């Protein structure tokens, strides 16, 4: 346990450690309870290609994640991955603003590591509920040029939500914004990215089935050129989407 309800797990998988891109996820079968059929999609927190170590950070939200959090060292785990379309990091990016809230912070570590490896100037805005909920701050600080923390209650860093300081931070425009967090946060990030004309990639979450694009249950509405929309698969077309294409408002009603 790294914070209340937040757990970190590491497992060995050379294939995943070598091939994972930031923003991708692993699909984990909950061991020991056959009544829980579906795998749990959990974002990749970090990888160590040399040792084959893969790290995930997740919140315990139900029976499945509770069982995962009770696993012991040495046990085997059934993992499918790396899956999905991660963040796109092109050579043109010289400066990046990384915005994360709550559980959405987990996948940003590998992103920041890769950005740093490429010599990108990285600024991170990380929002937590309170001081107790903060984890991995030292690592985030090591992997970026500046970290700004906000907490809802002001017990650490700035008081309030990340989105309340985002406007200030955008006075200096980055080449790219990357965001992951709860939908209300993403809505404001999307709005500000549009206002300031900053390209922005955001990672979404949705209840998933197969995780490989076959069952069409994890859909999100994406704008189409004709002014309409279509449902894309969060697991295969995402989880990372361009902010201007995603429709985060109440799902459109047309069938």
């Amino acid at each position, binding site marked *: 346990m790294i914070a209340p309800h937040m757990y970190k797990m590491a497992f060995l998988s050379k294939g995943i450690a070598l091939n994972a891109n930031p923003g991708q996820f692993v699909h984990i079968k909950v061991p020991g309870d056959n009544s829980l059929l579906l795998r749990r999609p959990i974002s990749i927190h970090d990888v160590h290609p040399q040792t084959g170590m893969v790290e995930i950070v997740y919140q315990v939200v139900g029976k499945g994640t509770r069982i995962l959090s009770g696993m012991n060292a040495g046990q085997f785990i059934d993992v499918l991955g790396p899956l999905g379309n991660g963040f796109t990091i092109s050579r043109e990016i010289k400066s990046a603003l990384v915005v994360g809230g709550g559980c959405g912070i987990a996948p940003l570590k590998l992103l920041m590591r890769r950005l740093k490896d490429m010599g990108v100037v990285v600024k991170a805005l990380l929002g937590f509920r309170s001081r107790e909920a903060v984890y991995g701050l030292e690592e985030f600080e090591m992997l970026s040029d500046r970290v700004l923390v906000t907490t809802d209650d002001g017990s650490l860093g700035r008081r309030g939500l990340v989105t309340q300081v985002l406007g200030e931070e955008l006075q200096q425009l980055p080449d790219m914004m990357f965001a992951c967090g709860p939908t209300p946060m993403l809505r404001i990030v999307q709005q500000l990215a549009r206002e300031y004309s900053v390209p922005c990639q955001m990672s979404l979450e949705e*209840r998933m089935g197969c995780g*490989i694009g*076959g*069952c*069409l249950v*994890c*859909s999100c509405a994406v704008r189409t050129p004709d002014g309409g929309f279509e*449902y894309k698969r969060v697991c295969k077309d995402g989880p990372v989407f361009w902010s201007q294409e995603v429709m985060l408002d109440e799902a459109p009603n047309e*069938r």
Partner: protein
Amino acid sequence: MKPRMSVKICGVSFKNPVIAASGTFGFGREYAEYVDLNMLGGIAVKGLTLLPRKGNPPPRIAETSSGILNSVGLQNPGVDYFIEHELPKLLKYDTRIIVNINGNTIDEYCRIAEKLRDVPIHFLELNISCPNVKQGGVAFGTHPDVVYDITRSVKAHAKQPVLVKLTPNVTDIKEIAIAAEKAGGDGISLINTVLGMAIDAKKRRPVLANIVGGLSGPAIKPIALRMVWEVAQVVSIPIIGMGGITTGEDVVEFLLAGATAVGVGTANLISPTACIDIVNQLEEYMVQNGIEDVNELIGGLEIKSFC
């Protein structure tokens, strides 16, 4: 000796009785990265409609004990797109292709069947059992007279044999199956999902945006077995049994109940290799039990009187 695994449905031979069920296997291509599609008895592709269909808003899935509820709502790119872009990729594999078709009206079903007339697929699966659409779907599958009409109409337009996919959400599955057979249906696949609902007690809201959805997975296997068995008593056309199959032994149970082949659905969502794993387990069961030909199992249920 390797047991014989092949079965015949309407004169079409399947290399084994395991078919990936519609809606859980995309158009095959999504799974080709993980499994050799040539090893499958058949693939029932994602349900198609005449025009592209967006599907229902998310969330579309909820996990329940030993089951899942879905309300995808037939999201698909339409029959024309399928013929032009998806089918050519699928035809590279040596497996049987079943095309699941859906419509808002009987006329729409017929027009899809027309479009598929000269396309090299093996079967049409007449989906009159989707619980997640407002028009058509299950509405066509709950009354014997309507089942008769739609089956007869589609048969008049279809070139390939027609499997009628039935819903379990009826009072008497036997009379529905009899209607499908009388109308000229070439086979029956059952069961589609069982209408269900999940509620989030904390939020006091339904989990699915569509409020209700179709239950699948091991939770519904006993219902499916009972219905396959009941239908097998009253029709002579072949049955593709499905509902909660996750192991080779589950397949054996469906064959014993009277199915000629089986559909594997929800298991594909748990593991992309599920169908192949199940084929291997079935073969292992046959070896261990000295069964040389899988056809020996079909309808082989022994019912002892208990008195």
